[in-house]
């Protein structure tokens, strides 16, 4: 399967995503430059982590208007699978492809640690190889990862099964102590109504080799190509 990984000025996990897809998972992956309108015929898109455009104004706010994002918005509207990781998640929210927004961690600190997230739905392009209730161990590293949305949006997310991942403890319980950044309802990742666009703060591309601490992140990518 052919994947595209976007590079904005300031992206810093684009190489990790390419390595994960090509070397670890044996996929065909190409780099998409932020000025490209041409998506090179890719069948799935990864918006990687980093600090696109220096996080100026708001995280993901400038990336949202880049030429490549206009093509990705069309690609997503046609049902193409798109995953936004960390800064990519922020950009998808800014672009209106996903509901809500990411704001400063409650602790005001940049957090870099392994967390546990529970799979809340398997109807998305990136979780259909999982089981509902699976607990994945995946690292986070962000300063602005606190998921925020108004009450009506939250209700819509719950009603339409759009919450994909929540931060949990070892026992899989959704509790405040397991919430690293103050995210509403412990939300770590959401999807659009159709389930083809997924955004999450944890980094699955950093959890694909046991040597580096775990392989749980593979499931998200494998969901797209393993039928």
């Amino acid at each position, binding site marked *: 399967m052919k994947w595209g990984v976007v590079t904005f000025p300031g992206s810093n996990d684009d190489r990790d995503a390419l390595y994960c897809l090509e070397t670890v998972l044996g996929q065909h992956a190409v780099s998409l430059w932020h000025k490209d309108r041409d998506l090179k015929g890719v069948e799935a898109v990864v918006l990687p982590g980093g600090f696109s455009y220096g996080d100026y*104004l*708001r995280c993901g*706010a400038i990336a949202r*208007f880049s030429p490549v994002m206009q093509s990705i918005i069309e690609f997503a509207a046609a049902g193409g699978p798109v995953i936004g990781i960390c800064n990519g998640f922020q950009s998808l*929210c*800014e672009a209106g492809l996903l*509901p*809500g*927004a990411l*704001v*400063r*961690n*409650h*602790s*005001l600190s940049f957090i870099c640690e392994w967390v546990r997230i529970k799979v809340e739905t398997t109807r998305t392009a990136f979780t259909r190889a999982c089981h509902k209730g699976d607990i994945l161990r995946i690292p986070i590293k962000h300063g602005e990862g606190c998921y*925020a*949305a*108004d009450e009506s*949006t939250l209700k819509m997310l719950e009603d339409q099964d759009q919450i994909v991942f929540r931060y949990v403890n070892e026992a899989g319980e959704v509790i405040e102590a397991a919430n690293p950044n*103050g995210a509403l309802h412990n939300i770590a990742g959401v999807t659009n109504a159709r389930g083809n666009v997924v955004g999450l703060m944890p980094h699955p591309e950093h959890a694909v080799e046991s040597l580096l601490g775990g392989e749980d992140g593979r499931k998200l990518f494998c969901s797209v190509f393993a039928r």
Partner: protein
Amino acid sequence: MLAKVYVTPKKAILDPQGKAIVHSLHALDYAEVTDVRMGKYLEVRLQGLSRQQAEQRVEEMCRRLLANLVIEDFRFEVVED
């Protein structure tokens, strides 16, 4: 012309920076402080527009880019430069 744009976190959104500033002010004995909300102030310089046009354009800029209406409110004033 100059547009002075103020972007602030919505009331419903917790503002941890504002809270940290409150704590710091209390530590400096400003016990009268009950709340701080921290936002952004932008100066947008414009040319070739009437005041009415400028206000319309700045409103649009705020909605499209300068503020994220999911989490922020904005207000602005247009003044002669």
